[in-house]
């Protein structure tokens, strides 16, 4: 902390918030310049979790990067796996059997439930209701993680998808348990919303705080629930229609104000839509193989070319850009991290607000540092 002299504003205070601060969701750091309690400048500082994921992936085979994608956004390993598989399938021209497509939708939507329930729990933590709402959310998350563990062997680092399909076929008992969990999930949401959505402190601290304009958000590359909270109808599940999403009947919730409250409501409403998708998927799941017989996992050598595969991750557009030079390793491997790019507007949203608001705004943007720093 040091005093910064400025002849117009008097003394400004520069505070380094993080990287070891509980409200920065990991090792994120903001250098905040304060005029009293008001933020006049905010510079995010990255790189505390940087391990050059892209370089490591370029020096190993296509399959070897799959478990490493789990570690990007470590709350959403299933979605990360799928995004990478999608890019490799585009690069190699592979197809995916029907059952695997359904399983991918099931895993991605369960991941969305995990991520969004965690996010709203953490958001309440940032608002000051320390830990009780978070533990309600974690209780539900843990049930889903138990399912992931029984299927893939790991709670969070699932390493489940493969290019050309999925790794394990769930037995009927797993599907029955998952289906029962999904049917019960709206009860958790109702309970949660009854306690928290209409809460006065919650409304006072989030409505009108950190509003984002639609044009501003598009230009800054904001994606996912943060973008849709501004009213822009852009959900890759509808726009790109990847996987089997066109077969499912669901709606895309849109906000009107783009403020912290809308960003919170987007998550709640998306969870309700995810439940609908999951119920349809469990009903319609076909029998059949889960791997493309032509897919060659070990020693996979795609033809010379490049591909950009992207999907609607729980945090926004997660993309993988791959260039093949015909060898077993990708020549270029790039992750388009939604967590990092969604922070582009952080300074604009926080200017003129207090530190306490900045914490809530950051919480509503939803970042995971494993993906921000890579």
């Amino acid at each position, binding site marked *: 902390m040091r005093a910064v002299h400025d002849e117009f504003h008097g003394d400004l205070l520069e505070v380094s918030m993080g990287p070891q601060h509980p409200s920065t969701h990991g090792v994120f750091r903001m250098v905040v310049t304060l005029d009293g309690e008001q933020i006049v400048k905010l510079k995010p500082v990255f*790189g505390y979790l*940087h391990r*050059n994921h*892209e370089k490591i992936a370029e020096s190993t085979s296509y399959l070897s990067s799959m478990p490493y994608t789990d570690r990007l956004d470590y709350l959403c390993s299933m979605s990360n796996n799928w995004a990478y598989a999608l890019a490799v399938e585009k690069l190699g021209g592979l197809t995916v059997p029907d059952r695997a497509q359904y399983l991918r939708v099931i895993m991605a939507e369960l991941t969305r439930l995990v991520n969004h329930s965690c996010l709203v729990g953490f958001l309440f933590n940032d608002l000051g209701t320390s830990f009780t709402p978070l533990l309600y959310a974690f209780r539900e998350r843990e049930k889903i993680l138990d399912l992931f563990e029984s299927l893939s062997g790991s709670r969070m680092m699932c390493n489940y998808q493969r290019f050309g399909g999925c790794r394990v076929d769930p037995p009927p008992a797993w599907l029955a348990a998952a289906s029962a969990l999904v049917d019960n999930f709206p009860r958790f949401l109702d309970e949660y919303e009854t306690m928290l959505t209409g809460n006065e402190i919650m409304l006072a601290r989030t409505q009108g705080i950190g509003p984002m304009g639609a044009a501003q958000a598009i230009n800054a590359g904001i994606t996912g629930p943060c973008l849709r909270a501004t009213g*822009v109808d852009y959900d890759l599940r509808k726009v790109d229609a990847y996987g089997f999403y066109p077969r499912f009947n669901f709606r895309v919730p849109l906000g009107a104000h783009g403020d912290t409250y809308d960003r919170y409501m987007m998550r709640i409403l998306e969870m309700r839509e995810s439940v609908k998708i999951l119920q349809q998927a469990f009903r319609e799941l076909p029998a059949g193989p889960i791997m493309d017989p032509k897919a060659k996992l070990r020693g996979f050598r*795609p033809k*010379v*070319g*490049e591909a950009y595969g992207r999907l609607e991750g729980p945090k926004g557009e997660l993309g993988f850009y791959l260039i093949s*030079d015909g060898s077993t390793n990708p020549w270029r491997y790039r992750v388009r991290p939604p967590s990092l790019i969604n922070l582009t507007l952080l300074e604009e949203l926080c200017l003129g607000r207090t530190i306490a608001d900045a914490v809530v705004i950051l919480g509503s943007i939803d970042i995971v540092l494993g993906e921000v720093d890579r």
Partner: protein
Amino acid sequence: MIVPASPDPAKPDLSTPPVAENSLASALPPFSPSAILPRLLARFPAATIELVPNPGPAAEHSLLLDAAHAREIATFLRDDDMLRLDYCSNATGIDWPEKEIVDTVKKSVPDPAGGPDKVVEEKTKRIQPGYLETVYHLYSMARKHGPVILRLRTENRNDRIFLPSLTPVWKSCDFQEREIFDLYGIVFLGHPDLRRLLMWDGFKDHPMRRDYVAPDDFEWEPTPHGSVLDRAKGHYPKTEGLNS
């Protein structure tokens, strides 16, 4: 753009054009590069724009822009009513180091002994200069189409490493161009705040370059506590012989 398909960066190999002729351009979707290219050339006659084919199954071809006109063209692509490429999804760098290419030419040489001509293979080596490249994936949220892929190339990998920043056109390039500057060393002219993003400020090299070698002691960092550690070594009397 892949090196084997295009031996010379100045003249991409277009011997197998991947897309239809101009007569079919109206049937193509408005965002396909072969539909955009003639419009751009008509609008910016001074610019050199090339189509870079993607030989893979994805077949998403890209447009190679010259650095001098890149920002004008990007602004046009963003504001044009038919394209409305309002969203730059991904911006990234690629390193193409210099490469030795062997050209083989067959020549028939007359036999000095008077026999039939001999066919001799003559091999000439040439160095294809290396360059750094940036790639931008553009989409339209208004029209819900894309991608349009733009590429920019530096003159070499050593001192002519300047490219125009597209952050004034799309703010989403802000952090991504900083990352490219950090990891590849491309200097973006006109970027509002060009600093390292992931590596620390005192770091010298660019780790995503293909020829980067990580030092053995990369975890060593000088600390202000060196004198404390030195003094600590002498804190206890020497214990030689006690544990041996």
